[in-house]
């Protein structure tokens, strides 16, 4: 009887937008993310100096004239480096998450829909990837193929896909028993079309949520790999900046504090977004403000 009460004809997009923007924390997160994207795209204009150019003004503290966040040990402007670092972080975060989603959804959907030995084999493969320690994998890849941003993306993607595959598999396995899927079979739809058109749209919500949380963890993993020197030496990344700052943790706190803050804010923003998406896409649980 209650369902009958709320029969306003709100389009799905409008409803999603409304539920997303309901919470203050989400609006903050979205604002932050927009800022980051702009910083990444318009880095040369946001930055004040050439991020690679050293100078004799080494180890200047923040709020020095011309250098808002100070300089590092080679005289490079910290603010400009943080801004440019956004590019690598977002690129690695989004690209590796995309890779994880593609792999994870494909494997999970096939395993969940067909079951049987296909399911067993695919899930054992997924488990194998889950057991790999991330640094060992990164070391091996870099030792064999050299360090670069692309290799980082591949490594992180390979670490993240099993979790996505599990979630997708569970949802697909339960959906494929639903009567409407049987109805599609009886209507003559081939299996692969059923997976694409009937099942996956209903799995979209957990994929989106997990995907955005994946981005957050990918950024964190990239930072830690770069911190240990396994990142791309030619790219400017926050983790790399932390690596450079190791000797100066006490003497020049700004060298580590600002990239660290950048990492924290980005990860927090993506986590908040994922959380908000989860609540917004969940068909039940409309919270009253």
């Amino acid at each position, binding site marked *: 009887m209650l369902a009958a009460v709320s029969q306003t004809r709100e389009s799905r997009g409008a409803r999603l937008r409304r539920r997303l923007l309901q919470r203050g924390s989400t609006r903050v997160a979205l604002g932050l993310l927009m800022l980051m994207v702009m910083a990444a795209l318009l880095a040369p204009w946001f930055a004040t100096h050439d991020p690679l150019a050293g100078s004799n003004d080494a180890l200047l503290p923040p709020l020095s004239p011309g250098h808002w966040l100070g300089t590092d040990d080679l005289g490079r402007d910290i603010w400009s480096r943080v801004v440019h670092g956004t590019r690598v972080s977002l690129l690695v975060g989004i690209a590796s998450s995309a890779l994880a989603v593609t792999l994870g959804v494909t494997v999970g959907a096939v395993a969940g829909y067909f079951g049987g030995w296909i399911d067993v084999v695919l899930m054992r493969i997924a488990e194998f990837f889950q057991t790999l320690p991330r640094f060992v994998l990164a070391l091996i890849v870099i030792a064999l193929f050299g360090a670069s941003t692309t290799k980082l993306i591949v490594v992180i993607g390979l670490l993240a896909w099993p979790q996505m595959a599990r979630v997708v598999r569970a949802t697909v396995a339960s959906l494929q028993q639903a009567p409407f899927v049987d*109805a599609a079979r009886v209507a003559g*739809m081939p299996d692969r079309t059923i997976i694409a058109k009937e099942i996956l749209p209903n799995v979209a919500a957990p994929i989106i949520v997990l995907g955005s949380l994946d981005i957050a963890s990918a950024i964190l993993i990239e930072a830690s790999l770069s911190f240990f020197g396994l990142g791309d030496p030619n790219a400017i990344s926050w983790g790399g900046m932390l690596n450079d700052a190791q000797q100066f943790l006490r003497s020049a706190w700004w060298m580590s504090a600002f990239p660290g803050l950048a990492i924290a804010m980005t990860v927090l923003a993506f986590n908040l977004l994922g959380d908000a998406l989860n609540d917004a896409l969940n068909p039940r649980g409309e919270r009253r403000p």
Partner: protein
Amino acid sequence: MSTPMNRHLNGQSDAQVDAGQGQRADTAPTPLLEACDLVRRFPLRGTGGLLRRPRLQAAVDGVSLALYPGEVVAVVGESGSGKTTLGRMMLGLLAPTEGRVLYQGQDIAGLQGEAWRRFRRDVQVVFQDTGGSLNPRHSIGNSIALPLRYNRDMDAASAAAEVDRLLDAVGLPATHFRERLPSELSGGQRQRVGIARALASRPALIVADEPVSALDVSVRAQILRLMADLRARERLSYLFITHDLGVVRALADRVVVMLQGRVVESGTVDEVLSAPSHDYTRQLLAATPVPDPSRPLQA
């Protein structure tokens, strides 16, 4: 002259055309759909191990059933009787462990290509509406168009026109309902959509699995009425799977009673319901509540 091709164009299903041909050739009528000693076993959860085979339990244990064109046969049983599993096997959605399902005399397990597609068109299903019978993200127009696209190979334009015709045929004005989502419809309306979807393939037989159990009393009769009218108009057969003897009496010609995977009694509705020969059938009849206060429960 009524050639097979003409009759196809007149909208008769393949099976109805065949039945006509059969009659002209003076052969004995073949059952439209037949179950021959069907058995389906499932592994019991928790009994298998890494190196040990799980114990099997038979949901359907040797059931035979024949359905002729134009008949309504009801399969009656409670939970655990195996009636839903039987229905799924007869629809070709589940492979039997033993036994065969024959469609017009041919084993459906062996059907390929065009023959399989004919089977898919001729045998359709209406599910119990518990919210899962329609894809929650598709408009009902889309859900009905599915069989038109895949079973009848229609293009978008002709499919749209046919969807409208089907919606009107089940009493849902097309202009209002075409774009609606299942969540916006009542239970009775969703069942009508399910029936429209089943009709879209122009079937000869519809398997209806508890089609009215989840509906209100006043809506039940409406849906059954619709199904009875469609049966006459479209020359359909039904395989009704239900636990409700009222539904059986209202629509069925013959009834089969199942208990724990086996058939315990079968016959015409009049025979079985007025003079049941098996204890379980008698139990079912006695337990069905009757809206008559002068016959209270014997406590």
